[in-house]
Structure formats: structure tokens, C-alpha cells
């Protein structure tokens, strides 16, 4: 085969492969992206009701309740402004604690309960998921504005500590 023809064939094959890959990717990206929402955003109906998303905040102190089967857990996720009740069945990660940051993945039901199918672990005692830190910060700021110049509120109560990437 002449080299000119060969090059044409390679270009065509390459483009076809590329088109196929792009198709696969767009399709996969469409259906597999998880957006992140804070409790305030969930209350403002910003979160989708028909697909799964990530909910992040702090585990409200005193909210963790366990059912008799020992595996189903109910708790509330808060950004210090709003809370969302969460139900999860399974074993919680080691560093799941009241008052600590948490990110849960799942769907919200029509009665406003977030059914989590995954509760994400952090790898380090001092680590706060950056999304959570930012959500808390935002809620804090909103509250401060609502309080209309009440006593100075410290924003950014939580600084995202350096994550130990070695722990992935």
C-alpha cells in the first residue's frame, strides 16, 4: 500500500476510535457524575430528587441512633444552619463520629430523608473534606448576614487541614 493511502487509513481509523471513545465518555460522564450539596442547598430544593448526589456537613451531636438490628443507623447532617436526616444500613467508617465532618452518597426520598448507600471515610484525624469545610463556611456567612450585624462572627470555623495523600 502506498504510504499516502496508509496515512489516510490510519487517520480514518484514528478518528473513528476517537469518536467512539468520545461517545462512550460523554455517555458515561452524563450518568455518573455526582454533585455535591450542603444541607442548606437541600432545603432550598437545589438538590435533585431523582438521582443520587453527595451530601456533606457535620454529623449533628446527639443525633446518631441505631436500630435494633445493629446495622441501620439514623443521623442528621448539619451545616450549622439546616439539617438533613440520613439513614444508612451497613458498617460505618472508622472515623465516623458525632460533631465530625461526613460525606454521604445517596438519594433523597419524598419525605426528605436522605437514604445513603455510601458514607465516606476520611483517612486522617485532622482532615476535613474541603467541600464540607466550604459548605460550613458558606452557612456561617449566611447566618452572620441574617443576624444583621450582630456580634462579629468568626467565619471559616474550620480550615481544611492538609490531607495526608499517602492515605490516598
Amino acid at each position, binding site marked *: *500500500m502506498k504510504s499516502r493511502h496508509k496515512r489516510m487509513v490510519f487517520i480514518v481509523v484514528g478518528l473513528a476510535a476517537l469518536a467512539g471513545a468520545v461517545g462512550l*465518555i460523554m455517555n458515561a*460522564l452524563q450518568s455518573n457524575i455526582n454533585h455535591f450539596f450542603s444541607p442548606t442547598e437541600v432545603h432550598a430544593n437545589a438538590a435533585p430528587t431523582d438521582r443520587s448526589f453527595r451530601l456533606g456537613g457535620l454529623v449533628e451531636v446527639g443525633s446518631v441512633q441505631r436500630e435494633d438490628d*445493629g*446495622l441501620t443507623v439514623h443521623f442528621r447532617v448539619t451545616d450549622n444552619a439546616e439539617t438533613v436526616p440520613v439513614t444508612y444500613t451497613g*458498617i*460505618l467508617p472508622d472515623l465516623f463520629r458525632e460533631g465530625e465532618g461526613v460525606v454521604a452518597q445517596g438519594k433523597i426520598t419524598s419525605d426528605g430523608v436522605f437514604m445513603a448507600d455510601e458514607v465516606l*471515610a476520611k*483517612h486522617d484525624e485532622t482532615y476535613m473534606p474541603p467541600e464540607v469545610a466550604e459548605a460550613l463556611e458558606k452557612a456561617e456567612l449566611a447566618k452572620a448576614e441574617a443576624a444583621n450585624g450582630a456580634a462579629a462572627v468568626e467565619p471559616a470555623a474550620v480550615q*481544611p487541614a492538609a490531607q495526608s495523600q499517602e492515605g490516598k
Partner: protein
Amino acid sequence: MIPEIGHYALILALSMAIIQSVLPLIGAQQAKASWIAVARPAAQGQFAFVLVAFGCLTYAFITNDFSVQYAASHSNSQLPIEYRIAAVWGGHEGSLLLWALMLAGWTFAVSILSKNLPDEMVARVIGVLGLVSVGFLLFLLLTSNPFDRLIPAALDGRDLNPLLQDPGLIIHPPMLYMGYVGFSVAFAFAIAALLSGRLDAAWARWSRPWTTAAWCFLTIGIALGSWWAYYELGWGGWWFWDPVENASFMPWLIGTALIHSLAVTEKRGSFKNWTVLLAIIAFSMSLLGTFLVRSGVLTSVHAFATDPARGVYILGFLAVTIGGSLFLYAVRAPSVSKGGEFSMLSRETLLLSNNVLLVVACGTVLLGTLYPLLLDALDMGKISVGPPYFNSVFVPLMMPLLFLIGLAPFVRWKKANLGELARLLRWAFCVALVVALLLPFTMGEWHWMVSLSLLMAMWIIVTAMLGFIRRVKRGNGLKGISMSYYGMQIGHLGMAVFVIGVAMIGGYQTEKDVRMEIGDVTSVGGYTFRFDGVVDQAGPNYQATRGYIQVMKDGENVMLMHPEKRIYNVQTMPMTEAAIDSGFTRDLYVSLGEPVSGGAWSVRIYHKPFVNWIWGGCALMALGGLFAICDRRYRIASRQRKEAEKRKMATANKGSSGDATGTAAVAREAKV
């Protein structure tokens, strides 16, 4: 005092690296023999200084010198000695120092194992490696000095993250870095070839064993990381498509494409431009991986704010390296001669397809990894791209690749005959098909995905056997078979073994979360598990709650498993230590959840069929690479070249030893 010596050694190493890069590169360009001669000693000097610096940091960890900031944040006097040493690379600064040490080590290896290469070429390679060293040493000294003092000294250290207190961490990062950094040698060879304009089969032959060695280390490093995540994180998964994992996987994909493309360049002289480009991309991916992992950009671009200097430095370094080498490529590539012609059905075409598939696969991983960062940077919302994306894109791309693995070794170079191939391979395909269709039934349930994966795996295994038999018949028995042929087949078989492991886990693993009171039984995967309670026990630097779980099969006791829940003293961090019974065809995996009412615990039990085949397959792939490095032809070629050189210069320098050849020594190093 010792930390200051380390700091000083690091500065000297930087000066040495500057000499190592500037003089040889200019010398090679202007043919100044005395400048060229600087390359080797400078590289060896740089290695010595980095080694001293690394030794000093290790000393600070061993002696619990908590006046060193880095040691105070990553170690503790209670930490067992082996973990104190591993803690040296347990954080950002130390792992960068390890990276610099590896880079200097590879350069050192090049300097002593390159006696057969033209001095000018070696000078360029070492010079380019020196430039990379300069970049990393500057990064260390300017933004991440591991020798910074803490005044006043801490009474005790903040301890190493308990997750990292594990034998896996002792070897995983060094192996991974050996691979990452090893691609810098392939990169340096490519840049040296572009600079000299000498881009030929000889260049591919020199560069090949180095690239394969780096690839072997990377394979082992990734497999170790996956294995560590499997048993240490307590999640029981082996791959999570986590951005940090992807960062190590992308260079592997490109590296795999590169070692195949190098084969074509060496054997047929084709794909020269493409091979050079791949070498550049492979190293760029290594750098990008470092950038992603080390800059804190991964979880959020806003993490830049925590230490902007680091992220910006690496990003700048990345831009200069990639931009510079691509510019050089653009200038030089058009003048490279084309290789041999080949037809549509030829081994060249199939290897090209292999390359295209691997590069596209890498592109999809890159997209999935960077897309969330991009959206966040543009303030378009926070998203995460989950494993389903990667699985649905990656798997369809890998299936044709697996088919090619079985096919390509039978296809002739230049031009092959389709009819002949079909006649040759039809029975192999039928055997693979029958096995793949029937085997899943023995596992109890038939899944088409498992069947398809098994088809590909069996296809690779059967064709490898067929190819081997044909070789033995055609040549004079086993003697006629080269090491590189063994290497190729072992590597490909490793891939098949890996695929079997993945398919079996995907189709047949069982997981059960249960609440167990003392005496409760539950069965998973044909085994019965009885919970016999927990006992408190103290470890060296933690308090453990040790579970007793009796495993039974067919009414007989098989073994006692001890999953643990540990609380580490310093960071008061709870850790789940899973109990795993490893077997050839299955793992039993038990981990404790948490205590629930009345002495009961929540317990997670997995039955994981063939999970060890995943890592076994990776080990086989690396072994295949080792065989390929040991091939005689590298030695013969270098011996011939040496003899030719000797004839030219009657005054042979006595320094170079007779038979200690480059590649054999590389192989020795790979074993170490």
C-alpha cells in the same frame, strides 16, 4: 547538627546537578571531550550528596530528633523502628526527597552501566536527567525543606498516620517511585536522541531495557498499593478509581504503550517519532501524577490556598518540561526518516492499535480525573466522578486490547495473511470459547461479562501455549527460544491471570454485613462463621480489641480468624485491621465494625474468589519484563559495539570490565 549536614548536602547536590546538566549538554553540542567527561563523575557526586541528605533525615527519625519539624509531624518515640524508617517517606517533604534520591540513583545507574554507549550520547542523557534533578532539588529546597527546625523542639512527635503503619507502606512508595522516576531515563534518552538528531534502531535498543525496568517497578508499585488498600483500608476493594490511584495508573498505561512501540522501533525502525512522543508523554504523566498528589490540588483546587508555592512550582515545572520537550520535538521530528513500509495486516498495525487503545484509555482516565478539578476551578459546582464512569469507559476499550494480545504474536512483521492466521488460530479460539462459556457454570451462576472476560483470558493463554509449541517445533527445542520471547509470553500470561482475577471478583464475590452476638453463626460463600467474642489486647503503640471468629466448613473447624479494632495512642484514631485468610482460589475476609447493644458486634464478612490472581497477574507481568531485560541480544549488541570500539582505539581503557554488560547489570539491579 546532623540535620544541617543533610541540608548542606542537599544544597551541594543541587550545585552538582547544575554542573551535571550544563557542562555535558553544552560539551556534547560543541564536541568538547573534556566537558563531556564531566557527566559521569558529576552524576555520581550528585547521587552521593542526595544519599547523605537522605541518610541524615533517616537518622533524625531513628533517633527521634523532634527538633526537626518534619520528624515531629510524622513520627513518634513509641513508633516501632521499622515504621520510623518508613515514616521518612510518610509525608510530603520526605517522599519528595525519596523521589530525588531515586532520580539520582537511576542517573547513577546510567553512569556506571553505559560503558558501551557513545560518550556523547551518555553525556546528553545524564545532562537531561541533571536538569530534572535541578528542578526537583530546587523544589525541595525552596518549598519543602525536610530539614526545617522546630524551635523549641517538640517533646514527642505527632505520629505517623496509623493507616500507614504497615509493611506495605515500607515498600510501596519506593517501588512506585522507582517506576515513576525510571521513566525519566526513557525521557532523557528520547530528548538526547532529539538533540543529537540520531534517532535510530540503536537508540531504541539502548533505551529499551531501561524503559522496561521502570515499567516493571511501576507495575509492582501499583500492585502493592492496590494490595495495601485491600487489606489495610478495611474496605475489601482492590481498586477504587481514586484520583491518586489514577495518577499512578496513567504513566503505566503510557509506559505499556511505550515498551511496545519501542519494540517496533528497534525491530523495524518504524514509529520513531511516535516512540519519542510516547517517552515524553510517559514522563509528563509521571510529573502530572506528582503534581496531582503533591500539590493538594486533588480534593479541591482551593487547597492551593493552603500552600500556593508548592502547587505553582510544580505546575510551572510541568509546563517548562512538557512545553520544552514538545517544542524540541516539533522542531526535530519532521526531519526523522520514515521506517520500513508495512501493510494493513501486519504486526506493526496491531502494535499501533495497541498503542492507540492504551493512549485513548489513558485519555479517558485523565479526563475523569481532571474534569472535577476543571469544573471546580471554573466555579461550576462540585462534582465527583465515580467508579461507574471509569468502568463503563475503560472496560470496552480493554476488550479489543486483550484480543490483540493473543493475536499479535502470530502476525508477521510487514505483511501477514488473514487466511493463514485464521487457519492457525481457529482451534485456539474454539477452545477458549468453550472454556469461557462453560467455566462460569462451575461457579454457580452465568454472567455474560464474566464469560467475555474469561474468553479473552483463555484466548491469551491458549495462544501463548500454541505459540510456544510452534517455537519449540520450529527451532531446535528450548534452546532456540530467546529470553525476550519468554518475557513477552510471561507478561501476557500475567495479563490473562489478572483478567481472570478481576472477572471472578466482579461476578462472584459475596459480602455480608451482620450483627453478631456471641455464639451467632452466619454463612458466606460455603463457609460458616461463628462469633466467639472479643478480647482486649495491647499492641506496641495501640490498644486492640481482638475478635475471635471460628470458621467452619461442612461442620468441621477450618480456622480461627482474628480481626482487630485498634485505637492508636497518639492520634487516638480507630483503625480496622481485617483478618484475611488468603488462598489460591479464594480469600476469606473478616473485619469488625463496631460494638452494638449487649456484647454484639457488627461484622463484615467477604468471600472473594480468585482475588489473589489480580496481584499474582501483576507479579507475572513484572517477571515478564525482567525476562525481557535479560535478553542476550542487548549483551551481544553491546559486546559487538565494544569490540568495534576496541579495534578503533588500540588504547582501550582498562576500566571497563570485560563481560559485565549494561543490561545484565540492570537486571541484577531489578532483582534487588
